[in-house]
């Protein structure tokens, strides 16, 4: 399990956080790190999509040993899928707001808030999925 978690933290999480970290770093360098600047960058949604997609892929790898219908794995898969789709919908609404160019009052700030909530919950969910898969695999 430890190996899987280390691999998860090192490769998957770090690479999923890379666009967000780069965006924050560049904003900081330009001395423009404000809440508004954060609200104008959708990288946090890429993180949500990436962690849920990776965990979905990892569940599919051990699919052959799971019973035809296991409620936990069924709910985990659908929650991850729903999370990925919802992140894409939020990204779409971010783009829509950029394209129409008539930014509604506080829309981006609200979008940032819900994106952060989604990112945190999908991070917890994906980490627990990795722990569960790691427990099944053992230290191999």
């Amino acid at each position: 399990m430890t190996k899987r978690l280390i691999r998860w933290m090192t490769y998957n999480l770090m690479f999923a956080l890379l666009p967000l970290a780069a965006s924050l770093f560049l904003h900081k360098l330009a001395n423009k790190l404000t809440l508004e600047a954060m609200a104008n960058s959708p990288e946090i949604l890429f993180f949500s999509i990436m962690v849920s997609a990776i965990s979905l892929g990892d569940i599919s790898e051990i699919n052959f040993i799971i019973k035809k219908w296991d409620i936990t794995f069924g709910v985990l898969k659908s929650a991850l899928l729903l999370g990925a789709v919802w992140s894409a919908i939020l990204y779409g609404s971010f783009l829509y707001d950029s394209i129409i160019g008539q930014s509604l009052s506080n829309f981006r700030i609200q979008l940032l808030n819900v994106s952060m909530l989604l990112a945190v919950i999908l991070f917890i969910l994906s980490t627990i999925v990795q722990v569960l898969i790691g427990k099944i695999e053992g230290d191999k």
Partner: protein
Amino acid sequence: MNYFSLFLIWGTLGVTLYSVIAISLAVYKISKSRYKIYQEKYDQFMIQKHRVEEKLNQRSSS
């Protein structure tokens, strides 16, 4: 607040609630060691895989 923002907020809350249910189920499975049946199946699969690989190696070397 317009309907679109409300849709996004309630949608996110729905996804969050569903994810919390999924997290609870997974934590329950881990804490009660319910994953062990899959652990056994996985071990059996790995042993079988190892045997097949050994046989294939023997065939290719002979």
